[in-house]
């Protein structure tokens, strides 16, 4: 488990890179009983101006808590996450999730890290922008 004394403001969060395949997107739609057609209907997605079906924000969001809990080594370290979805993610695109520590501080006896977090495609286009507050021992 990562410790408060072992991190510094400006430290980068180890990135994770994922490609959401069409098979995974289809499986995700099935498990979450997706009803919004832009996530599974090519024709509807194109009619709305998208290149193809769009990966759900909640699906791409999943990799942020995953990245943070794996980095800290504690499944209950996350206090809050705020994200904006700023561009669509399409299946088969390579996307990297990462971030950096903005501030380390103590509040009410708890040691906390405020982090900037983001996700970007191979071409540098950001798809998610946000912040997270993490509890660390």
């Amino acid at each position, binding site marked *: 488990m990562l410790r408060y004394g072992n991190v510094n403001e400006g430290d980068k969060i180890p990135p994770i890179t994922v490609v959401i395949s069409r098979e995974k997107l289809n499986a995700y739609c099935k498990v979450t009983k*997706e*009803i919004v057609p832009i996530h599974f209907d090519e024709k509807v997605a194109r009619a709305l101006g998208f290149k193809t079906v769009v990966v759900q924000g909640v699906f791409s969001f999943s990799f942020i808590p995953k990245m943070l809990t794996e980095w800290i080594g504690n*499944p209950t370290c996350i206090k809050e996450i705020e994200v904006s979805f700023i561009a669509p993610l399409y299946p088969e695109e390579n996307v990297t999730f990462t971030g950096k520590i903005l501030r380390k501080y103590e509040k009410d006896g708890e040691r906390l890290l405020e982090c900037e977090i983001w996700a970007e495609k191979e071409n540098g286009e950001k798809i998610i922008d946000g912040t997270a507050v993490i509890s660390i021992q």
Partner: protein
Amino acid sequence: MCCLSDEKIAFIREEVANALSRKKITRIRIDRETIKELCKIVGEKGKIYVDDEEARAAGFEKALVPPSIVLSILSPFISDFFISRLNRDIIREIKGFIHAGSKVYFFKPLYTSNEYVVEIMLSAISERKGKKGKRYIVTDVDVSLFENTGDIVFKDMHRVFLRVV
């Protein structure tokens, strides 16, 4: 591109606000099979998410729901909140539902197969003009998860853009 008058957009906004104004309260039991499938899709490999013994050895009550999939589990409730409340004429006017952002709070660990109370309510509604003349009704929906004791476990302030032009 179709054109809707400002009056028509104001009417749709009013209809959406009225339809979503009542709080929706429902219950959820997060079953192990769903957790397993979502863990596989997202790549969560921790045994504490699927094995009660491993979770107890790590100091938890039983297998945890990974924080990575909590929003995914709540997603069908949010979609249903919109679809079941909005009438067909209004849904026809909406070109797309776009999840624009979320602010989530994790207050307590979530446990597999425990029952939770889900509360969904509209907290704010506004309008926005986007690029290339697109028009949106912006809805802020609060989704909260409570234990049966009333303790809050998780909250998502979920922003959905309803594209009307």
